[in-house]
């Protein structure tokens, strides 16, 4: 049920071209933040449904339906646990459903953002937020290496399966033990990649000059203005729904 490969998928960026991917990274980040905040302002089921519906245009613009279904499939386990735990603690089925919708909404928002945003854009975004380059660079590299790691994991799992190894056998403890022939190559390969990367960066004079040249230029288009207004509108609408119809719950209540 917990499939490590599909979980890594959530962080994978594809760089596929879409109307959404061509937006300014700041716009995309703003929309992402809006759709993370809206579900959190209130556990009300109306807010959750509202937030889901308002994401539909973004889903269409980013061609991310495939990705979203995969992310959701990967999170089924957590979604089910969440429903059960919520129900057992509150005995309120509406509330439990609302919590699940909140999680789904946030997964969708992340999936859209990750599908349509290149790691390099995220790096530039972080620099714009005045985060030191060393840190933003490490973050971008980590994102960049997730798909590589996912490919490695796939090759390792298939290599061992081809040697007659059954990974999914036995009870829980047995299964954990059975991960060893997968984990060891994974760790060694990851460490080696790290060393190789460091060497490659050194040979390319990483960190020699304090001033880095940036070749990416981002423009603010009409569509960006439109989308930012859309985000603002939704934020206001969300707040209105909450203040006029419902009481505000503590912000981060889950």
């Amino acid at each position, binding site marked *: 049920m917990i499939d490590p490969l599909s979980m890594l998928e959530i962080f994978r960026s594809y760089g596929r071209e879409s109307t959404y991917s061509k937006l300014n990274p700041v716009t995309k980040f703003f929309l992402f933040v809006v759709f993370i905040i809206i579900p959190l302002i209130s556990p009300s089921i109306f807010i959750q449904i509202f937030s889901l519906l308002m994401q539909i245009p973004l889903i269409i613009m980013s061609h991310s339906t495939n990705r979203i279904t995969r992310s959701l499939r990967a999170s089924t386990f957590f979604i089910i646990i969440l429903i059960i735990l919520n129900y057992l603690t509150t005995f309120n089925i509406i509330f439990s459903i609302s919590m699940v919708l909140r999680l789904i909404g946030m997964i969708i928002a992340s999936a859209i953002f990750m599908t349509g945003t290149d790691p390099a854009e995220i790096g530039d975004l972080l620099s714009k937020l005045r985060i030191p380059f060393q840190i933003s660079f490490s973050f971008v590299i980590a994102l960049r290496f997730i798909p590589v790691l996912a490919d490695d994991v796939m*090759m390792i799992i*298939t290599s061992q*399966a*081809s*040697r*007659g190894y*059954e990974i999914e056998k036995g009870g829980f403890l047995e299964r954990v033990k059975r991960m060893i*022939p997968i984990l060891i*190559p994974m760790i060694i*390969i990851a460490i080696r990649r790290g060393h190789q990367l460091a060497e490659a960066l050194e040979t390319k004079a990483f960190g020699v000059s304090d001033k880095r040249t940036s070749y990416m230029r981002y423009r603010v288009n009409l569509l960006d203005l439109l989308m930012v207004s859309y985000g603002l509108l939704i934020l206001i609408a969300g707040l209105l729904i909450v203040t006029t119809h419902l009481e505000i719950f503590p912000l981060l209540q889950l």
Partner: protein
Amino acid sequence: MIEIEGVTFTYEGSSKPALSDVNLRIEEGDFLLVTGLSGSGKSTLLRLLNGLIPHFYRGKMEGRVLVDGIDTREASVASLSKKVGLVFQNPEHMFFSESVYEEVSFGPKSLGMSKEEMEGAVRWALEQVGLWDYRMRSPWSLSGGEKKRLSIACVLAMKTDFLAVDEPTIGQDSLSKESLLLTFKRLREEGKGVVVVTHDLEWLDDLHPDELILLSRGKVIERGPSDMIFSSVRDLAINGLIPPCKYILSTLVEVK
């Protein structure tokens, strides 16, 4: 016998099929060579043989693959690996043991061989690839070419009826290539089915494979005895492959 019947496979997220309408029959004692440019679908073809496709790789598969009459969809990869051994392109993905010896014994252990049988198989496999003297070393301390040969030994020790090897000659010096050649020849004489994917046509010409398969963009565009295909130097050149030297020379002589 492995039968590939009208297989078309498209990886999830990809628009073009990696293999299209491939038909192939591999019997015990056959020797099959698969070649083609990078990205032509060679590794994908190997993934069909022991069920990695469709069990592990997501995508759309048409047609079917039968191993000794069993549809690969109906059997697990672990059970198919008793019959079909697969050596991957990159050897590093499989190593996790402390010693070369332990590493090679992993496959036989998974298949449930007896202790004596396993010891014999491991020794034989390591001798085949010239690594018996390295048995106490760590797999990670070996050179690139040695790692590749170790990965071949890991699968050889499983004593499968079929052996499929992806790019065995990468990183090998001419001596190791020669000994790999001998190993494959011997396997074939023992009645095993051998499938080898390679770019190294010069090397494989010495093996006289029964059938050479030329893949291009997922399609089998040429198949037949190797000397027949190698002789059509022009076709090979069009597909970006350089046939062994002697065929080029004889073509040049003919043209003159």
